[in-house]
């Protein structure tokens, strides 16, 4: 199983590096997804199958799809890639790389000096996770749900329908510019804005 871990870890590091350096947003997202899949494999190998499944369902299967959705909605083309290329000059990399190297050195130091974990590895079943989430960590779950509630309220506020007057004003300006041919012409927008959703 150790070899599986090392391969997955190498894939994760490589994919993440490529994801950072890509100029095309969708290609970068694809590498990000590969990285998440690799992390899921690592979770599975070290005995956390439930977390591996959640990693796939939530991160790779839902959040990344949302990212992709937004990128597609914006439909940024060649232009964005050019802008990105202009932004990512070699000088930009200096500070982040320096800080990351510092962390890497620390990691080497810790790995060289700390004692390796002892005892047999213990695979965590979905049931154990459920019991600990709703037992000792119940407050954490509640706090996380509060946070999600705040997000939900915020999303509702941003996505709420425009006020009635605003819609009527828009309708009026549309009709004002439209020449009426005959009497039974179907007016665009006459049905959609008031009844849809």
């Amino acid at each position, binding site marked *: 199983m150790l070899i599986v871990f090392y391969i997955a870890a190498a894939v994760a590091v490589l994919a993440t590096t490529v994801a950072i350096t890509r100029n095309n947003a969708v*290609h970068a997202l*694809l590498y990000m997804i590969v990285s998440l899949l690799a992390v899921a494999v690592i979770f599975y190998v070290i005995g956390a199958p439930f977390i591996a*499944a959640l990693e*796939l*369902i939530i991160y790779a*299967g839902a959040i990344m799809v949302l990212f992709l*959705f937004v990128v*597609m909605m914006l439909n940024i083309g060649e232009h964005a890639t050019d802008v990105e290329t202009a932004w990512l000059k070699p000088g930009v990399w200096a500070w982040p790389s320096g800080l990351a190297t510092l962390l890497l050195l620390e990691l080497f130091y810790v790995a060289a000096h700390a004692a390796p974990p002892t005892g047999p590895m213990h695979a965590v079943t979905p049931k154990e996770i459920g019991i600990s989430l709703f037992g000792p960590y119940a407050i954490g779950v509640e706090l996380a749900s509060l946070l999600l509630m705040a997000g939900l309220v915020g999303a509702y506020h941003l996505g709420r329908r425009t006020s009635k007057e605003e819609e009527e004003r828009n309708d009026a300006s549309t009709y004002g510019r439209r020449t009426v041919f005959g009497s039974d012409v179907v007016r665009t927008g006459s049905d959609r804005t008031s009844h*849809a959703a």
Partner: protein
Amino acid sequence: MSQTLKNLYPLVIIAVVLGVILNLAAVLVWVERRLLAVWQDRYGPNRVGPFGLLQPLADSIKLFLKEDWIPPFADKPVFVLAPAIIVVTALLSFAVIPFAPGFVVADLNIGLLFLLAMSSLGVYSVVLAGWASNNKYSLLGGIRASAQMLSYEVFMGLSMLGVVIIAGSFRLTDIVEAQRKLWFVIPQFPGFVLFLIAGVAEARRLPFDLAEAESELIAGFHSEYSSMKFGMFFVGEYIGVTLISTAISLLYFGGWLGPFLPGPVWFAIKTMAFICFFILLRAAMPRPRFDQLMLWGWKFMLPLALVNLLATGAVVLALS
């Protein structure tokens, strides 16, 4: 010797499953066209071979020989990758499906979650195909697909959690074994209906095929695809239908359990019944408008799934 045979056993299962599923996907094209014809009072394809049974073969030869064209404006690597994703994720899901006791590639203790994960990864195929085609209609199809799959996946997961609560396990074998006394369709009827609807949406079949609605989007996300790349989407769709049907028969209709006949036969009968239901649905239902689809999903199905989950949990807690 017996040790070698034991090691080879999973490989044999994989070979059998792959062979059956891929051939089934091809034959389903014929089944669908013949059944639609029956319901529409006509014959359907009946020229090639007995009862037109060789039609899938003729179709696949035709697909293989067509010109494989990639539009010059497309994002080439993503364009090529997209059709592969749908087939790979759909086939991977069959790894955790138990066809009979012991006849399963990987009997994971997160089997059901694996199924969900693979179906949620399958979205990428459609979304990326729509984006990579660099065509307005394809992009619209891709955007529709991603919005639809995201919203229907949510209550698909929630609706099957009722089954998990009663069975007490994510392992599909355990879920089937828990139905020895009573199929879950009876105590979990609302969950079953919700899962069925979410399943149709997940497989992107009519009435939920807005991602490729041909009357408005040409062919949606696969407008630009030709030859076997288009064929992959086709095969992927039929494997998806088969997968949802097997999931329904495992979760709600006792999988291989049944009197007289051997287990795999029961499983095949139940699965085929649901595949036929999928096809009947296509013959019977009109396509909703996209905003109606989203509205229905979030404002009606999701609360219903939550209520079902809550009620199931309360009853199980009260009885235990």
